[in-house]
């Protein structure tokens, strides 16, 4: 598969390519190469650190969209056992942009809901690049109801550019499907743990994107509107998405600062795709630790607390009147 290079990491990738070329040579027969390789390795490391040490919000958005970034499928395969996929909304169809399943995580029986991007073009076409139709949200809601009925905690994975803005989607009630998920999730009487693993695009992400704990990957984003669309509205120019990304306060750190996210999972330099296994394992640990805390109290307190979390979000002025 062709390698995907984000524009801002081009200098590093060029250097890495050069290093790989050198390493491919027969080092044993050319001892003087060893020193050169060592120098180059140090240089690559230095560049990697400076390049990725302080990613701008727009660069993080690009990392979050990297085609090799671990996706819902990778977390499911890496963390869960005995996975039984649940398909269909029982009304119209099965939207593959949303994955729902019964699964086991470290002894916890769980309902998993996640946006599902594909790895290959073929997969992505079937999954509509992870942008759900109303059926996807209705399938998610069906899974939530199942979790309620059988008292199973819910774990969700966010990775969508947003709900699909198609013609039939509008006619089949995209807004209704999302709103119903919000209402259902708001008082679902089981623990709900949300993990932002990639893109958190607006209402389509929010539909499965709030609960009792919000864990964000370092380079995942969560936003009211995509930076491109925001730039289009503000400047009539999608090329100014970088400015919009900064203005929208959409990074994991921003969400911590705003009191919306609870914790951030660090990623290896360059992003989770450079070394997925430890990131996936860390996410698993954060989920089980959250479930242990959240399962300790009673359901009434859980729901009061969830409502209280939402209730506290917002900054406004209030006079005496």
């Amino acid at each position, binding site marked *: 598969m062709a390698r995907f290079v984000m524009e801002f990491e081009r200098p590093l990738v060029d250097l890495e390519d050069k290093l790989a070329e050198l390493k491919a040579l027969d080092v044993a027969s050319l001892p003087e190469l060893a020193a050169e390789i060592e120098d180059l390795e140090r240089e690559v490391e230095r560049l990697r650190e400076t390049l990725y040490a302080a990613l701008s919000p727009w660069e993080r958005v690009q990392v979050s969209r990297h085609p090799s970034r671990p996706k819902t499928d990778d977390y499911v395969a890496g963390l869960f056992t005995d996975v039984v996929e649940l398909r269909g909304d029982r009304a119209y169809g099965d939207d593959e942009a949303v994955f729902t399943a019964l699964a086991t995580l470290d002894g916890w029986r769980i309902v998993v809901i996640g946006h599902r991007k594909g790895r290959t073009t073929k997969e992505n076409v079937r999954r509509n690049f992870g942008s759900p139709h109303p059926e996807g949200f209705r399938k998610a809601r069906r899974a939530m109801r199942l979790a309620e009925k059988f008292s199973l905690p819910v774990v969700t994975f966010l990775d969508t550019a947003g709900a699909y*803005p198609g013609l039939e989607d509008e006619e089949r009630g995209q*807004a209704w499907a999302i709103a119903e998920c919000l209402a259902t999730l708001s008082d679902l009487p089981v623990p709900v743990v949300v993990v932002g693993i990639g893109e958190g695009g607006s*209402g389509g992400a929010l539909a499965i994107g709030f609960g009792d704990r919000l864990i964000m990957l370092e380079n995942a984003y969560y936003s*009211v509107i995509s930076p491109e669309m925001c730039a289009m509205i503000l400047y009539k120019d999608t090329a100014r998405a970088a400015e919009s990304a900064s203005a*929208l306060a959409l990074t994991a750190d921003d969400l911590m600062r705003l009191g919306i996210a609870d914790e951030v999972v660090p990623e290896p330099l360059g992003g989770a795709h450079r070394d997925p296994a430890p990131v996936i394992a860390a996410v698993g640990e954060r989920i089980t630790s959250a479930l242990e805390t959240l399962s300790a109290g009673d359901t009434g307190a859980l729901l009061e607390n*969830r409502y209280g979390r939402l209730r506290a979000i917002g900054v*406004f*002025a209030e*006079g005496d009147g």
Partner: protein
Amino acid sequence: MPINDWFKQRESRRYTVTSGSGADLPDGVWRTCPGCRKTLYQGDVAKSLSVCPHCGHHFELIAADRIEALVDPGSFEQTNASIGSVDPLRFSAVKPYTESLAAARESCGLAEAVITGRARIGGRAVAIGALDFRFVGASMGSAVGEKVTRLFELAIAERRAVVLVVASGGARMQEGMLSLMQMAKTAAAAERLARAGLPYVSVLVNPTYGGVTASFAVLADVIFAEPGALVGFAGPRLVEQTIRRSLPKGFQSAESLVDHGMIDGVVPRAEMRGRVAAVLGYLLPGGDV
């Protein structure tokens, strides 16, 4: 002055094309109906709840007029009037968010894009709110989310029905994620009202879009819309760009929403009060005590 220019100037003087509400206009002003292109005398328009007497086109109304058109005369008592937006992200693009807010406050005489309060409809106790599209497109930021949430909470505490007249451009992007989360917050409050067994009627007016449609607006027990109102999640331009063909006639109109099973009816403005009262008669019996 060349005679053509004189005509042009005279045209623009005579056919005052207005945006915003007729309530802002003095009685002596003429306006052109976008529905039938007829020239209307503002005094006549105002007398008919801002509905064109020729073709039935529903002009935009300001929030206060929306409420007045629905509630029993003199029964409205405003709540949380002082809640207003601030600029938590120091958002500045083409112009600073604080400037947009100041301009909206100046021109609308409102602290925020929604008016809320207690009232009676057909004698029954309601908590009522109306959004005002003139105010930053009636978009939902922290302040709108808070006022709508408090309205639901007031209704629960005082056993009232909720009636909301909704128009909105969606979540207010100038407050970023704080705005997106207001969708969950208002939906959670609407859900609490539902659990309390209290009715909620929403009236969707032109235009209602984005994060407001996809949260409290459509979580009502009964949803009505005004004739011709456009309601959806994604705006028509975005949908058109996405599917790369032109949209069918009437796409996202209130009339097509009925056909697709999304709302309970298209109700002309003059009949809305009676229709809402009839619903409350069934869903909030004894609510007049």
